[in-house]
């Protein structure tokens, strides 16, 4: 099942790249299509951030991930590099759990 996800996902992503090189330009140049293509990653990534921060399977929970994301937000505000943003979040959650301040 995992291999199916990996290979089907990869095949589709390659197909999307390939399609762009052969279809007539006017289709993707349509303002509506252009806007949607630009906005899709924003809604998908934001949804993933929300789910990854507040959801535990089908439940909404508040745990160590919330202050960790707050710390990441501050790091992003100060234009920190990617690796620092990730590490500060991980360290915040790990520390809160280690000292028993959050689950």
């Amino acid at each position: 099942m995992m291999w199916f996800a990996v290979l089907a996902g990869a095949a589709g992503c390659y197909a999307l790249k390939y399609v762009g090189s052969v279809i007539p330009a006017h289709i993707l140049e349509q303002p509506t299509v252009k806007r949607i293509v630009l906005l899709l990653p924003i809604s998908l990534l934001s949804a993933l951030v929300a789910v990854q921060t507040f959801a535990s399977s089908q439940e909404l929970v508040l745990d160590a991930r919330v202050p960790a994301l707050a710390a990441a937000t501050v790091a992003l505000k100060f234009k920190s590099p990617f690796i620092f943003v990730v590490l500060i979040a991980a360290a915040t959650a790990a520390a809160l759990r280690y000292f028993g301040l959050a689950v």
Partner: protein
Amino acid sequence: MNAALTDWNAARRQIVGNAASIGFAVAMYGVSFGALGTTTGLTIPQTMALSLLMFTGASQFTLVSTLASGGTALTAVIASWLMGTRNAAYSMRMTPILKTSGPGRLVAVQLTIDESTAMGLAQDEDAFEGRASRLAFWATGLSVYLLWNLATFIGAISVSAIGDPKSFGLDAAIAAGLFALVWPQIKSRTDLSVAFGGALIALAFTPLVPPGIPVLAAAMVSIIVGWVTSRRIT
């Protein structure tokens, strides 16, 4: 002629240098991706297959984190495809500049991602008869491909060694990593509404439908907002 050749040599050095540093910057994400892949239940070969074959970071992160949150393989695959749609726009933009055909085209297509496209388009299209744009695309694409895969491998093998990923805050690191990916894309008030709309819809759907589906539901926000705003402009 000599002066032109010197100019080109200087330009070439600069482009290749930039391509290499982009590769190293991207490698940081690659290590995180490799670590994420193996802690969420993929094997090392599966994690590597994603970096080698899918080779588009946001789609890879999407697929893996959808599976990690309990989504089915099918919802994870669809989410990764939706995330990959922008690459179609990129290769449409790059194809006339690259002037490739046959096997060269098939390789160029695989290397068409955010970084290579941005670098290719950052050059003056007519500079050195288009050679600057082409070199920037190829050098960036190849440098990122090489370092992304190397970094994925390092991340994947190093994490198989640690114990409970939660005690290292890896779940929070995933959220922060995704947040760092979307942050620079939010450039207008509309983008911000789409981001908040997507997040709220995903959370509203979370208790109601199986994991993975809430993220797909959030894609509707982009489709509706994209449709409405493009109509208002024209």
